[in-house]
């Protein structure tokens, strides 16, 4: 089930928006302060120019500093924003020689200005002002006292300039964001091109084309492409297995059917009822075997392809083993063998499983043991409780198989290198399927007495799960 969760573009856009807004806030704060500073610098220098112009007009007459305020200085102060202006010329004692507005200059500021020209911000009668003071060393014939020149103006020009600068900064930023957004969209198109190419290639594939991908992908997509490749490989393998199984099954069914045909043909050519009878008996046996073979094929197919439909229940593994062993021991097929039970755990051992499947499993194992051991062999079934698992085992004292064959035993139509029996070679394959179904493990090993031992390890239900 494919659930569409947003889009990569939306995701990238969200990231862009988040980072850009965070960055933007920082930038705008910076822009705000820098435009304030720029406006301040620009207008502070006008204050300085006005102060210098006034300084130029200061002269000494008869021991007194005299200043004839130049009109130009006032116009420089007013700026084109028509600020209200303030000026004052103070003598060495801080007394006003000239000035307007009666704005008192604090002593502290006057002291600072004696060191260097300084700018101050001040609120005078509810209006913010920017003041500038500088000291002028000028010498007359009689006295040589410094004179302080103070100028100031209101701040509307500064505010307007700062606002304009800030607006410019904001405009630049917005344009930058838009350009970045467009570039991001383009970059995304370029970056996602390999993905589109891959999608296109997959779409073009035939349904049964399981070859590995032949494409170029960037590093980031390598894992996905490899995963796809391995998916294709597994599909190919499973399809191959299916084809092999079908071919083998057909082959297996063909042999007895061909035998039936041959037997019945021979019988038809004969005139003797005795021969007919013999042929009928052969046909009966052969049909029985074929029917059993078909049954096994059916249950194998059912096990392999109906995995979701399992109806597992909690059941007692010990009693199931005992019942099945008794059941088989009474059958005709087992009369030549000695089927016995080893010592079983006394308490019931619960596992989670399907009753029919487990019976089928045990039946196949017993059937195998009967078929592949000579008559008179001893077949022993047992159950052992381990810490986490419950073990079933079945062992015989027959000829056993070589280690090389042992690894292949669970494959369909494998007869352990023996062609002398009536078995189909499906028994252990069915067992293997059932074992997988129950999340159990199967171990095939040589028994101590020389025969074969098959061990099945089922996960136990914990006490909590039992409860």
């Amino acid at each position, binding site marked *: 089930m494919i659930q569409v969760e947003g889009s990569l573009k939306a995701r990238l856009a969200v990231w862009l928006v988040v980072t850009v807004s965070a960055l933007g806030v920082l930038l705008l704060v910076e822009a705000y302060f820098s435009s304030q500073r720029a406006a301040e610098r620009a207008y502070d220098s006008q204050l300085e120019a006005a102060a210098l112009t006034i300084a130029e007009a200061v002269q000494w007459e008869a021991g007194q500093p005299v200043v004839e305020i130049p*009109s130009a200085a006032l116009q420089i102060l007013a700026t084109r924003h028509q600020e209200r202006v303030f000026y004052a010329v103070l003598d060495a004692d801080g007394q006003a020689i000239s000035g307007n507005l009666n704005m008192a200059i604090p002593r502290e500021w006057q002291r600072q200005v004696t060191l260097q020209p300084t700018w101050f911000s001040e609120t005078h009668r509810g209006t913010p002002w920017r003041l500038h003071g500088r000291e002028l060393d000028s010498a007359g014939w009689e006295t040589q006292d410094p004179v302080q020149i103070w100028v100031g103006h209101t701040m509307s020009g500064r505010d307007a300039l700062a606002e304009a600068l800030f607006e410019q900064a904001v405009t630049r930023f917005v344009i930058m964001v838009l350009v970045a957004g467009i570039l991001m969209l383009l970059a995304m198109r370029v970056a996602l091109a390999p993905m589109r190419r891959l999608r296109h290639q997959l779409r073009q594939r035939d349904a049964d084309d399981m070859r590995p991908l032949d494409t170029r992908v960037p590093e980031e997509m390598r894992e996905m492409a490899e995963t796809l490749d391995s998916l294709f490989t597994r599909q190919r393998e499973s399809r191959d297995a299916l084809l092999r199984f079908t071919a083998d099954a057909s082959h297996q069914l063909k042999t007895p059917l061909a035998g039936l045909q041959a037997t019945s043909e021979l019988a038809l050519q004969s005139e003797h009822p005795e021969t007919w009878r013999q042929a009928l008996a052969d046909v009966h046996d052969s049909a029985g075997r074929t029917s059993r073979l078909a049954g096994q094929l059916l249950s194998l197919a059912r096990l392999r392809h109906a995995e979701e439909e399992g109806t597992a229940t909690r059941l007692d593994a010990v009693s199931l083993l005992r019942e099945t062993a008794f059941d088989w021991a009474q059958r005709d097929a087992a009369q030549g063998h000695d089927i016995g039970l080893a010592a079983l755990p006394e308490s019931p051992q619960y596992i989670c499983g399907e009753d029919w499947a487990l019976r089928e499993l045990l039946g196949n194992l017993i059937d195998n043991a009967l078929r592949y051991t000579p008559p008179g062999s001893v077949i022993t079934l047992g159950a052992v409780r381990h810490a986490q698992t419950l073990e079933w085992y079945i062992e015989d004292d027959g000829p056993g198989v070589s280690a090389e064959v042992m690894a292949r035993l669970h494959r369909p139509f494998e007869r352990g290198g023996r062609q002398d029996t009536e078995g189909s070679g499906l028994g252990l394959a069915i067992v293997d399927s059932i074992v997988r179904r129950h999340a159990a493990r199967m171990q095939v090993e040589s028994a101590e007495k020389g025969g074969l031992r098959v061990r099945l390890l089922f996960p136990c239900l914990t006490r909590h799960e039992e409860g």
Partner: protein
Amino acid sequence: MSIRRVVLAWLLGALAPSLAWADNPLIVEAALDREVAAPLLDAFEAAYPHIQLTFRDRSTLEVDARIADTNDPPDVVISSAMPWQMARVNEGYARRLDSSAAREWPAWAKWRNEVFGFTFEPIVMAYRLDLARHMLPPTTHADLHTLLTQQRGTLRDKVTTYSPVRSGIGYTLFQQDARYTTRFWDLVAAMGAADANLEANTRSMLEGLSEGRYWLGYNLLGSYAMHWAQSHPEVFVQVPQDYSLVMMRMAFIHRDAPHPAAARAFLDFLLGREGQRVIAGETPLFSVRSDVVGPYTAQRLRDQVGERLYPIPLNASLLAFVDPSRRAAFMDRWQREFRRLSHPAPAPSAAATEPRIDKRAQR
């Protein structure tokens, strides 16, 4: 809520302003002849019958003092003493006017959208018919200087001009004259040599001319002089042909105006088309607006005397004129120059025979 009640509430809301205006007084303190301004005031009262206009015609000094009167501030202040008006605005006594009329007002005739020069009054010379019988009347400042130098005997005691000490306008005009050329001081010296009479206002000069005491007047307010000449045929008005200063009467709404709405209405009227039309048509104050037609408009004056009109700039540079030390220095120089030729060896103690009083009453 019923519809009727909504309508009633709406009607009350709509009527409230006009109801409030019904007894809305407006106090205008003006250094502007009531006689000259009468048509303008009548037109305002006709346009705003709800506003009870109190127009107080005062001297510039009184007007300036009234501005600082925080107990009983006026609504609108009008004065021809441009530097003092400017100083008051700079001190923050004006209230900003945000109206379309204020915004459209030419930038050279306003400052901070707070104070507006709403008239355009040329500064002129005036002479009596007698002068023309004896000599060619002057048409330029240089002519005047030549005349004063060459006809010193004839013109002795017959020349009049503003006293810079007693008149703020006179002081402003001389300051502006002195800014243009240093030869102005030669003119002052020549006037001093001719024992020129210093008057406190244009009215006194015009009366002197009509009575025959004076033959020639320098730096008169053109508005008053032209108005006077209409009823006094013996007086002629001459707009100087080299340059003519132009004085603007400056009006602003007081920061603490008790009736700001009415004050705004008054100023909008002054600056608006209607008020300027009355100024152009019925007063000799000259309209500033170029879209107004009438005998008294700045445009028409320019057409008549050419581009030699030099309005006193309405900007921060005016503030320099009221600087006490600059004023003192200017006065010193004035006294020195005025006595230079008549008293070749000036005694320092006699430097100030005129009492130093700022801005004496002038009308």
